Structures are given as structure tokens and as C-alpha cells.
């Protein structure tokens, strides 16, 4: 597929040109996105910030292929979403994108490990293999002992870690996180961001996750320092140059935990953060 051209240093992981999106028609229409151009390089953790209603969620919906733009090009690792539709698009999305949501979106009737296995099951992987890989992934987020629990039995932070495991189990190149820490307290939020940051590096030597790119939508200034790059939005547009000072955000890069070294539990190899 597109592996060759999307190696680190190759073409951008995300390439948006003239993206517009409106909801509703006529006078009542809301112009959520008013012409977005954006390039994100591989191996980046990009944060998307801006006031409520400025179009952040709409933008990541389009980047991740769950929403169609009205106009423009939305290319992710060489896949142009507007070229795809129906089952082909859905399958491609399943391979390419992992999701972490503000409200976790775990399926309450299923056990934690079944939730995590879901991206593999929808691809048609056999149940026992999928469950094995899911259990390994849960181990990677420090929940190896809670595989049979129901989501409701876990704390918010734990549920978000389950969601991260689910997002990563299929080894997606693109990880989309919409307000991943908004429902969590500060400390738990930091822990969740540590996991996302670790995941953003992909797994060394894994061609599938090499050059992985992470987009995090957030309001939470306490996690700005995790970003490699911050894009600020206002009223359906990107503000440039960004006013958020990266230098300020970046001055606290202390990853002081030990337990969360394994980002891709399926491979067995660990990627210890320093």
C-alpha cells in the first residue's frame, strides 16, 4: 500500500486542503469549518485547541474518516477519504485509525477484554486470537488483572485506559483523541496522556505503526506540554501562527512512571520511556 511513501520524513501523515463543512441549510446553516489547510508530519503528537464550538470535533471527525467534508481533500497516510465510501471506507478506517473519546464509549454489556478485542473482531480475526492480543494490550496499559471486569466496575481513568488499549490493539497509524482527559481528574489525566504520548512513538521496527501520528483535541492546558505541535482553531479556521507558546508548554517533560513502558503489548517488545 502506501507504506513506502509514508516513512518518517516522507509526505505528511495528514494533509488537509480547503476543508469546509456546514451543518443545516440556508439561514440556519452552521459553518463549522471554513477552509482548513493543514499538514501534520509523521511521528507527531498534535494538539488541537480552541474555544467551544470552534469546530475541533468536526475537524477530527473528518480527519478520521467518520464524517464527510463538504469540500476539500482529506488525506491520511496517502488515503484520501473522499475517494472512498461505504464498506471500503469503513474497513480502511478500521485499519488506519484508533479512537479515544471523552466519554470512553465502551460497550457496557461486554467485558473489558472483549471491548479491547473489538477492532480485531470487526476485521474478522478469530475470537481466541483477538482476545489474546487484547489481553496483552490491556497489560500494556496496566490493566492486565481486570480483563474480565465490566467497564462499569472500573474508575473513569481505568475506563479511559481500556479505551486506549482498544484504540491501539489494531496497531493504527493514526490515533484520534477527542478531549481524552476532560472527564478525568488532573493526575489521572496525566497518566492517560503518558500512555498516549508513549503510543505516539509507535513501536520501533513495526512497519504498521512506524511514523504514527496522534491528534489530541483538548481544552486542558495542563496537558499542553505533551504536544509536539499545537494548532489553535477559532470559528472554523486555524489560527496561524499559533499563539500557544510551545516552549512554555514543553518545559515539563517528566515521565516519572515505570509501569507503562509497553505500548504495543502484542509484539512483546517494550519501549521504555526515559
Amino acid at each position, binding site marked *: 500500500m502506501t507504506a513506502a511513501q509514508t516513512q518518517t520524513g516522507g509526505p505528511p501523515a495528514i494533509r488537509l486542503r480547503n476543508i469546509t463543512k456546514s451543518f443545516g441549510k440556508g439561514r440556519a446553516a452552521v459553518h463549522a469549518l471554513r477552509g482548513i489547510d493543514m499538514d501534520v508530519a509523521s511521528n507527531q503528537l498534535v494538539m488541537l485547541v480552541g474555544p467551544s464550538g470552534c469546530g475541533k*470535533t468536526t475537524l*477530527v*471527525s473528518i480527519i*478520521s474518516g*467518520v*464524517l464527510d467534508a463538504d469540500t476539500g481533500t482529506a488525506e491520511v497516510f496517502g488515503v484520501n477519504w473522499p475517494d472512498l465510501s*461505504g*464498506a471500503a471506507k*469503513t*474497513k480502511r*478506517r*478500521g*485499519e488506519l485509525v*484508533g*479512537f479515544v*473519546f*471523552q466519554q470512553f*464509549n465502551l*460497550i*457496557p*454489556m*461486554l467485558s473489558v477484554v*472483549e471491548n479491547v478485542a*473489538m*477492532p480485531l*473482531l*470487526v*476485521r474478522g480475526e478469530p*475470537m481466541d486470537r483477538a482476545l489474546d492480543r487484547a489481553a496483552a494490550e490491556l497489560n500494556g496499559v496496566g490493566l492486565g488483572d481486570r480483563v474480565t471486569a465490566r467497564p462499569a466496575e472500573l474508575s473513569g481513568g481505568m475506563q479511559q485506559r481500556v479505551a486506549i488499549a*482498544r484504540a491501539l490493539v*489494531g496497531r493504527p497509524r493514526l490515533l484520534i483523541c*477527542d478531549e481524552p482527559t476532560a472527564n478525568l481528574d488532573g493526575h489521572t489525566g496525566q497518566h492517560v496522556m503518558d500512555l498516549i504520548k508513549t503510543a505516539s512513538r509507535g513501536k520501533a521496527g513495526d512497519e504498521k505503526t512506524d511514523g504514527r501520528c496522534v491528534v489530541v483535541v483538548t481544552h486542558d492546558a495542563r496537558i499542553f506540554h505533551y504536544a509536539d505541535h499545537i494548532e489553535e482553531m477559532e470559528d472554523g479556521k486555524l489560527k496561524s501562527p499559533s499563539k500557544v507558546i510551545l516552549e512554555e508548554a514543553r518545559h515539563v517533560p517528566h515521565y516519572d512512571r515505570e509501569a507503562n513502558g509497553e505500548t504495543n503489548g502484542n509484539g512483546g517488545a517494550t519501549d521504555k520511556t526515559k
Partner: protein
Amino acid sequence: MNRIAIKMLLGDRAKYLSLVFGLAFAVLLITQQGSIFLGLMLRATGILQNIAQPDLWIADPHSEYIGDIRPLDDHDLYRVRSVPGIAWASPLFATRARVDLPDGRHKTAQLLGIDRSTLIGQPPLMLEGRLEDLRQPDAVIIEESSRSKLGGVGVGDVLKLNDQRAVIVGICRAKMGFESNATMYTTYNNALQFTPVGRERMSFILAKVKEGVPIQRVQDTINGMTDLAAFTHDGMSDRTINFILKETGIGINFGLTVALGFVVGLVISAATFYQFTLENLRHFAVLKAIGATTATLIRMVILQALVVGLIGYGIGVGIAGAFSLLGRKPGAELAVYFPWELMVGALASMILTVSAGSVLSLRRVITLEPAVVFK
């Protein structure tokens, strides 16, 4: 994903149970009402239920149903016997008679007079006494549940039947008619004795067609004769049910009730399942976002519909079946008839409805925007 679909279904115990019980209730409503309706219609065929030996029932052509009795002549019996292809023909006398009870009250009884020599038209099952004793003068055999209706009488007791003396020589089991009057058997000759009218009291001629002769041909021959009409057992039964449905209020009134039960049952099932899918819509959206194709989701919904539909069906039919067992007790006033066609019909309507419910649900699943997961 099939296992996941089932787990999503069973995972929420409360929702699952309310779904299954909603469906079971719908099936119960359909089969229960249906079986009572069918049971009543069957009862309406009265004496037809008990007499299986003859191929043809011959009556006055103006008789509209089995209970509409227009007497035939002795002469008609000879005419039928002389029709080519007839093996035998027996008279049957069906009438109402008044039974005086010792306490001064009286009851109306259905009195059946059967041919004295052949005993054709005899009760299906003897419980006490001997059928042959019916040939004695004044003898009657009464149907078991009629004993209590007549004040707890038994074999050997003497009744006053239309002011004549009648001796009970046996107890039998037989199906009751519409009016569930006390039912008693006697011989044709005795019946004439008990009934204070002239000779024209033959109600039906029961006839058997010779082996190898097409029944239809004999039937046509008899129908070609003036003042006689021949019906097969089923033909007479259909004629009776049609009459009840069209000419009495029962058809329209009870039919409406049954139809209502049917529609309500089906709507409940469809709505219940639709509701279930709606509540899962967000989960389906998540699955769609992470790569489940619409086809996969459709399969999941249909599987869930089938599982829950079949379980609900099983429970509903089970309860309705238990009801019908009550109705099978001899002499039970509950008229229940539970043929396999009803079960198949209920299954078909169940599948139809749950499919309707799922089609509604599927429309939502198919048009589902995965973007709602961010909401």
C-alpha cells in the same frame, strides 16, 4: 461478531428480559386468542366433532349449518340407499329434549338418536356401561360432563325426558356443542318415542361410499336429487363455520378481538425490538467508527432479532399450550383448539414482526453516522 451480538443481547439482563417477555406476551396473545377462536369455531360444528364414520352427511338443501335441522323423510333414506356407490346409509336424529330434574328445575339436553342396528353415530368413547345396552327400550347414554348438569346422575338412574321415562345405561365421552347443553345418546327408535311428533324427524342421513367409488361422484348424484344435499365431513364443517362467521355476530365481534390481539401483539414485538436497537445505537456507532461494516451490523441486528424472537416465541407458545391443556380436560368449558397450523402461523407472524422491528432498526443502523461517537 456473532458471539458479540449475542453477548450484547444477553449482557443487559433487565433489557433482555423485558424484551423476551414483551415478545412472549405478544405470542401468547396471538396464540391464546387464536386458539380460543378456533376452539369456539370447532365447537360450533357440534355433533360433527363426534361422528367420523360416514363419508357423507345428507341433509335438506336449505339447511344452512349443522344446527339448522330440517327434517327428512323415511323415504329419503331409501332414496339415498339406492344411489349407486352407497355402501350404507343410516338415519341420525338430532333434537333438543327437556329433562326434568328431581328438584323441579329442568334442563335442555341435546339428544342424538342413532341407528339401532348398526349404532352408527355412536359416542367416540364409552366410560361406563355397554353401548349395546342402548338397544333396550327407554335407554340413554349420557356424556360425562352432563352428569353434573343433570344433578349428578349416574348409571341406573331414571330421568324424565320430555315427560317420558329414560334410563341411563352408560356414560360416554364426547365433544360438546356450542351451547354446551347436556348431551345424551339414544337409539333412533327411542328418540322417536321420546319426541312427541310425527314420523318426519330424521335430521341427517349418514352414508358411507363403497370402496373405490369416488365420493365426489356419489355426492353429485345425491345433489342432483330434489330436496337432498350431500356434504363431506369437512364440507359440512366449513359450511357451519362460514355460517357462524358471516351470519352471527360471533364472527365480526370475536374476529375483531382476535385481530386486535394479533395487531397489538405484533406491534408490541416490533416496537420492543426497535426500542432495543435504538438503545444500542450508540454502541453500533462505535463499532462502525472502529471498522464494523454496515453489513456486519445488519447481521448482528438480525441475529439478535432471531434469538430474542425464538426465545419469546417458545415462552409464549409454552404458556398458551399450557392453557390449551386446561381446555383439553373433558367437559372443560374453555373452548381451546391448538392446531400446529396456529403455532406455525404464530411463528411466522413473530418472525415477520421482529423482522419489521429490525427493518425499522436497520434503517437507523444503516443511516447511522459514525460521527455521533464524538457527541
